[in-house]
């Protein structure tokens, strides 16, 4: 039977587009179907207010795999990430801490709070670089399948074991600590000042339904050190034109290799016959067939909505129902008529060009989490804010600015039930603006436009089940050979010829592109397409 397409990819997020590009590059006929009018999924830029281009959901880039940029020639297709120079922490007592790319400058800033901490930084970086090296060997390859007794898998396991063993007992132990400890406990191994630990620890909780004291949150701290290993001087950056810029670069690359991309083409379900995916059925009733189908959607949506329970074996159904996606964050995007200045460090300095953390103390962060545990959004939330328009003038009219606030915690499952989120949306937005206004006098008068996204909205608009920005919690039982399901962790699903390439696959969330790349490579290697 001749098919028009070798692969249909459901979802035009960055992973779907990357997967399409890799397949198209070697001559496969690929069709990408995106439900919305705009590509990018969670890595999307939208002009929501005239002249203001928002990175609606995902807002900074750090872990995008550099070899993908090289292999797909993404720079030619518009990929441009401008590094961030500073991490800024305003404090309610009028003080503040800025951490800079310049180590001496950072040291002096930190020394105001703890001289010891200011000097330990290089030692911490050194150890984290070791750990990051290890993590790199994990995220750049498909996860070895532990359940298999195949000699190939055993060897892979042994090789991985050897890499770990060669670290020596101390680093090996540290690695265990990194994987299992709370972000705060891990930082306690080095640092004493809360003013430093609080803003550092939050990178462990972003996107998770955990607090900085929750075991298992430490390893995300690594992300800050991965950038370095990839040969970049600084790890975090803004994508030119918003994070959608990355998705557009991926889309352009895919198109240049001959992939076909359709927007406003919402897939209703995967066409499954005899346990084999044969194509997709669109919402408008059109049937499109292909040799393979690849889902960029989260595992829950893929298995339960696109495939449907009736096509799943009992044990698969049981396992997919165990997959956890409790979303915990929201987003408030503001268009402002001027630069927001902080009362604790007035002026439009370089400190505004990085990220701004509202994380004044450990107790503050933990209390924010406590509320979420009981089904409320934090009334004193952790906020990670950026003003990308200070670095990339293309996203706002001259003199005007964007303040983009990532907010935690906003649990998907509020007490009243997730479907009641719309009733609380305004209150949530006000909480965030009020909190920011405590540090930015006059903020409320600067606002030209406000977009509030609750986890419910993330689900409705972007198709992220339960508003989970990583397509599934990043806890150990949902990582590696268990992401998303044990036995189906190598991009294959339990349905023949149906594959997955989203953040719900190894190595997980963030704008990495690894899922899309590794899925395409796995398919090509196994001659599935």
């Amino acid at each position, binding site marked *: 039977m001749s098919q028009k397409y070798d692969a249909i990819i459901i979802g035009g997020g960055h992973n779907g587009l990357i997967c399409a590009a890799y397949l198209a590059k070697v001559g496969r006929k690929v069709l990408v179907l995106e439900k919305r009018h705009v590509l990018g999924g969670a890595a999307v830029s939208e002009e929501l207010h005239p002249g203001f281009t928002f990175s609606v959901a995902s807002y900074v880039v750090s872990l995008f795999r550099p070899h993908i940029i090289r292999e797909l020639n993404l720079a030619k297709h518009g990929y441009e990430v401008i590094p961030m120079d500073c991490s800024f922490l305003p404090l309610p007592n009028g003080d503040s801490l800025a951490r800079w790319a310049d180590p001496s400058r950072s040291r002096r800033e930190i020394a105001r709070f703890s001289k010891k901490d200011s000097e330990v930084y290089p030692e911490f970086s050194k150890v984290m670089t070791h750990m990051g090296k290890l993590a790199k060997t994990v995220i750049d390859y498909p996860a070895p399948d*532990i*359940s298999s*007794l195949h000699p190939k898998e*055993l060897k892979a*396991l*042994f090789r991985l*074991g*050897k890499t770990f*063993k060669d670290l020596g*007992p*101390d680093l*090996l*132990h540290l690695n*265990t*600590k990194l*994987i*299992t*400890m709370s972000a705060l*406990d891990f930082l*306690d*191994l080095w640092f004493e000042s809360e003013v430093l630990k609080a803003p550092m620890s939050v990178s462990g909780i972003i996107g998770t339904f*955990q607090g900085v*004291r*929750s*075991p*298992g949150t430490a390893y995300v701290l690594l992300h800050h050190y991965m950038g370095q290993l990839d040969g970049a001087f600084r790890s975090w950056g803004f994508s030119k034109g918003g994070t959608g810029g990355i998705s557009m670069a991926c889309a352009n690359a895919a198109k240049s290799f001959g992939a076909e991309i359709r927007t406003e083409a919402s897939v209703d379900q995967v066409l499954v016959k005899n346990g084999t995916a044969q194509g997709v059925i669109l919402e408008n009733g059109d049937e499109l067939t292909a040799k393979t189908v690849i889902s960029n959607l989260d595992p829950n949506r893929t298995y339960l909505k696109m495939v449907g329970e009736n096509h799943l074996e009992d044990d698969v159904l049981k396992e997919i129902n*165990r997959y*956890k996606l409790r979303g915990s964050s929201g987003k408030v995007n503001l268009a402002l008529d001027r630069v927001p200045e902080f009362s604790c460090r007035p002026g439009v300095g370089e400190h505004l060009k990085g990220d701004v953390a509202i994380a004044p103390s450990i*107790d503050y962060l*933990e*209390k924010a989490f*406590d509320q979420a*545990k*009981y089904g409320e959004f934090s009334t004193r939330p952790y906020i990670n804010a950026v003003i990308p328009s200070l670095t990339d003038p293309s996203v706002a009219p001259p003199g005007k600015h964007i303040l983009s606030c990532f907010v935690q915690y906003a649990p998907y499952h509020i007490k009243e039930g997730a479907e009641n989120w719309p009733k609380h949306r305004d209150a949530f937005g006000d909480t965030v603006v009020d909190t920011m206004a405590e540090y930015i006098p006059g903020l409320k008068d600067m606002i030209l436009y406000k977009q509030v996204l609750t986890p419910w909205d993330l689900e409705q608009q972007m198709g992220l089940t339960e508003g989970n920005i990583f397509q599934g919690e990043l*806890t*150990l*039982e949902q990582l590696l050979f*268990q992401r998303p399901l*044990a*036995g189906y962790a190598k991009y294959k699903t339990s349905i023949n010829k149906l594959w997955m390439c989203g953040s719900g696959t190894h190595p997980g969330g963030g704008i990495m592109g690894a899922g899309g790349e590794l899925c395409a490579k796995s398919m090509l290697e196994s001659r599935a397409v």
Partner: protein
Amino acid sequence: MSKKYDTIVIGGGHNGLTAATVLAKKGQKVVLLERRSVLGGIGAGEEFHPGHWSAGLLHETGSIRQHAINELDLKKHGLVTTGERASVAMLGKKGKCITLYNDESRTVESIRKYSEKDAEAYKAYRSFINKITPLIRDIMDQAPPDLVKMGNKDLWQLVKKGLGLKKLGKATMMEFLKVAPMSVQDFLDERFETEFLKAGMAGPAIYGSFTSPRSAYTTLNLLIWECLSTEEIVGGPQNLIASLQKAAEQAGVEIKLNNSVKRILLDQDRKVKGVQLGNGEEIESNVVASSCSPSETFFNLIEPNQIEYSLEHGIEHFRSRGTTAKLMLALDKPFTLDEFENELQFLRTGNSWLEMEKAYDPVKYRNFSNEPILDIYLGGKAPEGHGSLSILVHYAPYELEGGWTDQAKKQLEENVIETLVQYSSIKGSIIGSELLTPVDLAERYNLPFGHIFHGEHAVDQMLTRPIPSCMQYKTPINGLYLCGSGSHPGGGITCMPGYLGAKAILKN
């Protein structure tokens, strides 16, 4: 210097006694030094009210390992075991109660009164536990693998041993790998629906660690407890100590009470040469086995400049944040519950995830719980017709905001009793009490920050316990060994750190 010993054992708790006896039985000349006037450490019974005795700080004896009992001939020395796992009652408010018996079918019936689904789920749960028990016991009964010396060959052995996991069968293995890192709340939610049953079952998962049921990796702690838990000792820890003492004496261990150690003495090359007692007396030996906590051993018993910084840093960051208090209550009548069965000795409260979580929150902010989670033992000695309640109280911090004033202690005691009242009407019958805050525990038992296990049972503090350079019981100080709860397999009354520590001494 007085006469020379093969080994000096510091601390006369269950681990110290075990270590000393194992060594003496192999012909070593051993002296055991105990700071207090009684043996037993946390296992020593204490009279807290005339005629009313606690069974010791910890009261569970179900985790003591069989081969230790056998090797020390404890049964010959008066140890009697019950032959079965203790029955534990999970209490719910308003008189609800489910009892987990040794006899599974009885347990299932007890659960069935509340939930048919849970009754079936419990069978599956036990069957899972039974399948993984050999694996867990295998790990907990042996000294951990020597990471420092591990070669490729050892690694291959380890990978193959890991594949021993595969002997469990693929399904069980995958399930184990899936659930071990999970939070106990997620784990039990997947299986059970009755709130107070889940809350009660989750107890052992959070004891002695700075976690709540929703913390990752707490399932692993529950599984370990379930797999190790076997028959209880009749009479509780006190009787264990009595038989250990007899075994030690029989084996020729010289026991010195009221003898605190001031310093472990080292020679020029930082090798152990003996100890100096509080009274200035010096005892000579090339080997010292310390059953004290790692921080006590390295920070108080060794001169500050004698240890390298990496060791100091490691021990300093061996997390041991005490979160448990102990309340003893003397009652003028036996303790009763509506649905009470008189064979019961252990009770656990919790009632719901929400309440457990609310009990946990304050400790993060250096406060104790309004409504704490209670782990209760009814077996303490009491005069005829009276009762003794031994209650482990979670959570109470070592460093309390504002300090442990009398006012604060009174408040905590009140909180415990008010909590208890919601499960049973005991209020009028209390005739005496003793509250030990983590600070009191630290003082009485020399526990670091009052931590009942010498250090938290967190994943990174298992196996490599307390730190990699000491995980084989020997330490970077030549001749100094650890044999307390700060070593693998950790705290609780297992006697294993003492047993394995002694084995390490004999091996070297």
